[in-house]
């Protein structure tokens, strides 16, 4: 029994020492990344008057440099494809609380019509964007807070802070669908394969229902709004167009959830391009040409605040 305990203790000790070697792997990971926006937030390098948050709809549909050029005020896009409102609220919180970042005058939240408050398989907390940055304590703390990692093991072992992406040890590169402009936007200049085939029959009007709303998502949305309110930031909730899918009642639901702070801006359905397939990447995302039109619309709304 004694021998068994001693062996286990010795093995644990040797593993503990071995574990510390992985600090090199952990600390080198940010350099292999191609998207440095989150690192910019947590190291206090965000310096724009207008910030855009959202999922892929925010990344594809809003061209931040176009807003900067039109208004003469700096604009930066912090939208992450596949992210949900929980992640957006986290990004905004980090932006506002990290020393060195400039508090923006206007924040645009591009929402997912009509899944902003509901379970959507493709939307979540982008831990994969956080893993390369685990050398920063703030990232590690958030992962523990989000229950992605266990506090005790996270503090004890470097290896618990890593994930499989660290072991690829490969310099990341932009892909056809995920190239990031200097302004942080990620517009797409082509159309999804089989676009017409995929969305031919999806042309039904959809009435928004509260059924299936997630309390966690509603809380995250409230946190987002409250953060803007606390820092006296003008808030614009933007709804970009879907192709051939119209949701009624979603805008009203958003307005209700805002509790009087901020405004909801929805695309103008009378603009003919929004009914033209040639302006869309797929049914939920505009192509660059469509994004330019939507960004123009959004610019007019933001202009009121300057």
């Amino acid at each position, binding site marked *: *029994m004694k021998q068994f305990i001693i062996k286990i203790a010795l093995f644990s000790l*040797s593993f503990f020492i071995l574990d510390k070697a992985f600090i090199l792997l952990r600390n080198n990971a940010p350099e292999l990344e191609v998207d440095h926006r989150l690192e910019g937030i947590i190291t206090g390098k965000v310096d724009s008057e207008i910030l855009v948050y959202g999922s892929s709809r925010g990344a594809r549909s809003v061209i931040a440099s176009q807003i900067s050029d039109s208004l003469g005020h700096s604009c930066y896009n912090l939208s992450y494809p596949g992210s949900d409102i929980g992640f957006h609220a986290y990004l905004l919180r980090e932006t506002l609380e990290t020393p060195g970042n400039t508090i923006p005058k206007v924040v645009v939240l591009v929402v997912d019509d009509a899944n902003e408050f509901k379970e959507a*398989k493709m939307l979540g907390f982008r831990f994969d964007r956080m893993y390369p940055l685990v050398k920063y304590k703030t990232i590690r703390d958030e992962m523990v807070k989000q229950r*992605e990692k266990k506090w005790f093991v996270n503090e004890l072992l470097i*290896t618990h802070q890593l994930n499989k*992406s660290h072991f*690829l040890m490969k310099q990341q590169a932009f892909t056809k669908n995920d190239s990031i402009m200097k302004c942080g936007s990620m517009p797409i200049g082509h159309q999804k394969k089989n676009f017409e085939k995929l969305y031919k029959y999806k042309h039904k009007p959809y009435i928004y229902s509260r059924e299936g709303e997630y309390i966690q998502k509603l809380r995250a949305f409230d946190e987002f709004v409250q953060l803007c309110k606390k820092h006296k930031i003008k808030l614009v909730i933007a709804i970009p167009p879907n192709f051939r899918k119209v949701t009624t009642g979603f805008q009203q639901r958003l307005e209700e959830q805002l509790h009087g702070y901020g405004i909801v801006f929805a695309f103008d359905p009378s603009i003919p391009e929004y009914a033209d397939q040639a302006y869309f990447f797929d049914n939920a995302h505009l192509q660059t040409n469509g994004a330019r039109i939507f960004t123009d619309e959004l610019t007019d709304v933001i202009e009121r605040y300057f």
Partner: protein
Amino acid sequence: MIFNSIEFALFLPIVFILYWWAFGKSMKWQNILLLVSSYVFYAWWDPRFLLLLMFSTLLDYYSGIKLEQTLDRRIKKVWLWISIGINLGFLGVFKYYNFFAESFQSAAAELGWEVDIFTLNIILPVGISFYTFHGLSYVIDCYYGRIKAERNFVNYSVFVSFFPLLVAGPIERATHLLPQIKRVRTFDYTRAVDGMRQILWGLFKKVVIADGCAEYANMIFNDSGDYSGSTLFAGALFFTFQIYGDFSGYSDIALGTARLFGMELLKNFSFPYFSRDIAEFWRRWHISLSSWFRDYLYIPLGGSQGGLGKKIRNTFIIFLVSGFWHGANWTFIIWGGLNALYFMPLLISKSNRKNLETVAQGKWFPTIRELIGMITTFILVVFGWIFFRANDVTHAWNYIKGIFSSDLFKAPKLPEEADVVIFFVLFLLFIEWIGRESNFALEKFGLRWYRPFRWLFYSFLLLCVIVLSGKEQAFIYFQF
């Protein structure tokens, strides 16, 4: 509490130290400790269902004594059926009521009748299928006089509730486990080290293989309409290794943990993906369930006695019931039926007991014939798992149709990080192939190595487990 949790990582050493150091000299106190810790382990999930477990234990304990005391055959039969009826009644209500109600409703609707049947909004108590089967085997064995009724309630309760096997098996037999519970246990260093190795390998299979594969299996199965034939096939492969890693990983942890307490549980897996035919697969997959059905269903039905028609009937019954045991869904029943169909050519040609020994025994590589058998069996199993994983029969059917599309032979589209999981699956297959003649893959692997190398290998496994452990993922078989 689940095995791949921090809670269990603290719970296990505490119970272990108390068991050997504080109560090492008293078997009675060791058993009391095991019972209390098993109840804590179970109640960690939901304390309400502890009462159900206790009631089931008490019922079978009392029935066992009554069966032994009663000489009248008719009264014995009454006690037997009371116990079976109540046990299966609980299982029926918690697991199958909604399925039968909804199926009846749909069938009535097909005939044009509108039937309004209420369904129950209840959660399935973890492990109910397993501990119910423990109890049933005990009562049936008592009825047939194969075992003496246990008079010590603590001992009997430990047999039903021993925490390593409580929620997902292996399904133990009183004839095997009870004598171990009643025997004085002394600490055995070799067995404990062996147990640790098996736990480590089980954790690797669960956290690295099962949870790693689950990510891509879920991604592909959840949006199966969007993927090419080859990607769908890759999704089915991911699930194939997910379910193996998950369930055999659990069994390894359970067996390893039991060894730390000086007990041997029934072997549940024996390298099933190296099987040369489907009959061999079923002798190697979830062995404790297959043998349970063989002993308590197949043989009472007549087993292999009688004509071919009877054998075919009994084989179909056992596979369909086994499918239904896994879950109240038509997909499981079809999965069972499909496996029965796979079995038929072997049964008819009387070659179902052909491959009894381990493949390529004493050799490095299998023969071409064995390899063809292994690949064919593996592919049949993969197609079976599609029904097991699918949400419903339509989903499974569309998934299979999707596989056989024109792009089946194009490279599957998978995220770059899937390469890491594929590497680990190949690593698993390699280690399991090397260790296929042992009780578990790591039993003899590396034992002759110089200690630093051996420890480095264990550190590598542990490192993989720690790196890939994030949010605790429950074991698939908890839902059964």
